[in-house]
């Protein structure tokens, strides 16, 4: 009996030895397929022959765009809305498994996209030939479809002027427990922003802002002024949120300013400013902040190596830059097409050229190299 049990146990454990470490490592970076230059008509023809396209996107509005795309070309779209890290995880896993998932992605979090999906070759860049001269070159590699801004927005009920003018206010005990910001570990772009402000350029700017706010030079206890500010705002009881929508509602609900010393303020996507009218909230961006009014990040449109329907994917990417393709995003403020010809919501929004100088940019390579260090640093203060 004992022997029998032993036998059974061996049988049970055998697969472990067999499979436990099987093909875990990522395959070597594949060379991006040679991009065939096709005429637009040919592309449409081939795309229609494929008849279907699968897209993963971090924006839920992809569904709306998909409807328009299907209407226009008669090509079915299977779209799914994933969170940034889910998308990265999924694409990586699928590529490693050799499973064909998405044909292309509309993804955010440059920091991880660059290092984890583009470098290993799971995703590759494709710029529609028709747009090579339209999209600014700086946005072509990797291809950015849209930029989205997150800015300091406050409750402007009963105020004609922003009470917030310097980011160091949020580190000042007078403004304790005030600023609301989504958990940077929950959304990569927020962590990217915190990473970016620790670079030389922004840390210098932040040090200058310190001087202009306090009238004296900053005394560093950390590597630079960027780190110093991060530490200071978290130690000043920054309120960690879970969703920009909730933060927007919490900041914007009317009737709060009368009861509080400082009007509520948060750092979240500008598109929520629309709630001022649609949900009767009081929301206004503080655009004159020193040294920045917020940051922006991009949604990248990237082809998947394992695409089954590459032509339909390419056609869809091209479609995203047309006015119609952009409209699901363009119908609201806070999203800016890389095609400068696409309009914005002029009633409350500004062209991206106006925003850009006010905002911290997102540099994929820098983020990928430095974000781990910033996250380690955050670990000490955020929890």
């Amino acid at each position, binding site marked *: 009996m004992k022997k029998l049990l032993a036998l059974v146990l061996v049988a049970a454990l055998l697969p472990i030895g067999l*499979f436990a470490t099987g093909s875990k490592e990522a395959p070597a970076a594949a060379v991006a397929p040679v991009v065939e230059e096709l005429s637009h008509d040919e592309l449409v023809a081939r795309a229609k022959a494929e008849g279907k396209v699968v897209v993963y996107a971090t924006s839920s509005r992809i569904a709306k765009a998909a409807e328009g795309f299907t209407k226009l070309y008669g090509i079915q779209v299977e779209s799914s809305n994933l969170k940034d890290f889910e998308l990265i995880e999924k694409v990586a896993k699928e590529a490693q498994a050799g499973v064909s998932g998405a044909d292309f992605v509309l993804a955010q979090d440059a920091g991880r996209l660059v290092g984890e999906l583009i470098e290993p070759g799971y995703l590759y860049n494709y710029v529609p030939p028709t747009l090579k001269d339209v999209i600014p070159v700086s946005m072509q590699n990797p291809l950015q479809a849209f930029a989205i801004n997150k800015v300091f927005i406050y409750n402007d009920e009963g105020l004609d002027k922003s009470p917030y003018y310097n980011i160091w206010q949020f580190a000042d005990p007078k403004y304790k427990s005030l600023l609301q910001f989504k958990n940077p570990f929950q959304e990569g772009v927020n962590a990217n922003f915190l990473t970016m402000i620790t670079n030389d350029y922004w840390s210098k700017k932040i040090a200058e802002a310190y001087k202009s706010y306090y009238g004296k030079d900053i005394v560093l206890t950390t590597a630079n002024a960027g780190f110093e500010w991060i530490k200071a705002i978290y130690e000043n009881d920054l309120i960690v949120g879970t969703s920009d929508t909730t933060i927007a509602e919490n900041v914007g609900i009317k009737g709060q300013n009368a009861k509080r010393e400082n009007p509520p303020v948060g750092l979240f996507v500008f598109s929520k400013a629309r709630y001022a009218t649609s949900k009767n909230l009081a929301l206004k961006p503080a655009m004159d902040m020193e040294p920045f009014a917020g940051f922006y990040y991009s949604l990248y449109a990237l082809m998947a190596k394992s695409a089954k329907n590459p032509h339909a994917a390419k056609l869809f990417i091209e479609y995203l830059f047309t006015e119609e393709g952009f409209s699901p995003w363009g119908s609201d403020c806070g999203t800016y097409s890389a095609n400068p010809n696409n309009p914005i919501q002029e009633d409350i929004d500004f062209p991206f050229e106006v925003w850009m100088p006010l905002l911290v940019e997102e540099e994929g390579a820098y983020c990928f190299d430095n974000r781990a260090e910033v996250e380690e640093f955050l670990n000490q203060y955020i929890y």
Partner: protein
Amino acid sequence: MSAKSKLNQMKAFIKKPHNIILVVLLVVLGYLTLVPLLTIILDTVTVHSSEARFVKKPVGSLTLYHWTKMFASGVTSQKTFYEPFVNTMVVAFLSCVLAILIGGFFAWTVTRTNIRAKAFISTVFVFPYIMPAWTLAMAWLNFFRNSRIGGAPGLFTVFTGMETPNWFAYGLFPIVIVQGLHYAPFAYILIGGILRNMDANLEEAAMLLHANRIQIMMKVTLPIVRPALLSTFLLVFSSTMSAFAVPAFLGSPVRYQVLTTQMYRTLNGMNPGYGYIMALVMIVIGVGILMLNQWITGRRKSYTTITGKSSNISLFNLRKARTPLTILLVTILMMVAILPLASFAIESFIMAPGDYSFSNFTTEFWIGKGRADIANSEPGILRNPSIWLGLTNSLKLSIIISLIAGTVGMLSGYAIAKRRGSRLSTWVNNLTFFPYLMPSMAFGAIFLSMFAVRRGFIPALYGSFWLLVIVGAVKYLPFASRSGINAMLQLSGEIEEAGTIMGVGWLKRMTRIIFPIQKTTFISGYLLPFISCMRELSLFILLVSPSTRILTTLLFQYNEKGWNQYANAINLMIVVIVVGFNLLINKLTGASIDKGIGNN
């Protein structure tokens, strides 16, 4: 022993169906539980693709980086591991105590007294367990939020004008309350089973020997149910320990972190190695709990409380307290089970949060076409194709999983009980229970990486519906196997033997004799996986793909995006479906989740 006699012995061994069941289970479960465990261990010393930069080693190589960072790196370890670890233990312990106190009190009142409205209490009391836990957390915020996070004041503040203190609104206190309430029905089901099986004569004997109520409780009832109660405590403890969503919603405004929230962010973020260590720590604690449990039930003083049927259950006469106590319990139930549901219902019809004037009511979130300025043109849930897909998937998934887990659980219960005491049976018993101890999220993550590639004859299951099925069936097997074992232990072996002697085949014995006799217990074994699956999130969150999305992942997404009206509507839908299903099964078969999974 000659070769021939060995061969004969082998033949005799495999001729018995329960031996085959045990061996097959040993192999399959060994594969599906031990391999993930080894994978987790391996993952704690491996460099993952996102870690290569800061570990400064190639992807896939071995490293002790994660272990040193987690346990021996000063402030980092303190903040990322030790503090959340302590918080986890505190939260799990306190919520567990609360769950057992509430669940135990309700169980005692319903099984042992002549309280009124038993059917109502027993049905409604399980609602908080059916609802996804974090929706209770959302309800808590609806009621008790304060100005710390700004926004509309909570209903409590609206009605009383008092501002709730931070400790009351966020962090440890509400997490314990909400989790305690969520798991109280679980304790209720388990303790109710114990009490139903405990012979009332034991208490009566004490009463006749001049023991007063308190003495009976302290000296007789509690000590007798203590081993079972302790098992319940440990089961609930390991559940609360691995709960994720509630701390995520209620802890973050005051940055109260527990292991699961840390695990979620690390597994999904830049350093999954940390996450795997946390998962491993939780598994180790779980296994410790299991061993403790076995030690407790294996001691000299232990006894089974099963007496077949407890004759002459006399109900404790509450006399004058009967009506007031009924009113009290029903009121409590209204507050913890009905009120949140009502608040979800109301909130799903409100445009701007916090404004309850009639003009602010809208059906947009149920049947609207979707407005670009509100929630990115998301259509109302009744005309939203992705919700319908999620609903179909959820139902399909839950039904298939409950069929598999229930059937396998029944068979394993049968085989384990048949060979009780043998080593093979003990192993399989532990293996069927092991998935219970695996934190759901880590379990999901492991299955994701295990089955992303082809494994022998198993094709790459990544993104397929069957991956969800496997993971769910394994994870919920413990529920079903527990009720299977209980059902079999209560059944005398002679009943089956009578069939064997008459030459009735095994399959027929199972389907015509054993199953019909213990129908209700077995059906509970099917029901519990179904319900758990309908409201499960963390197990599936990493595994769903666009075509396999389920209701809870949609719900969580909506909650995270802050589109609470959609979320509330879906939540209502889940509760209605599960309650409806439970009622239907109850009408058809007499089984019901509140009747429970027997004693254990």
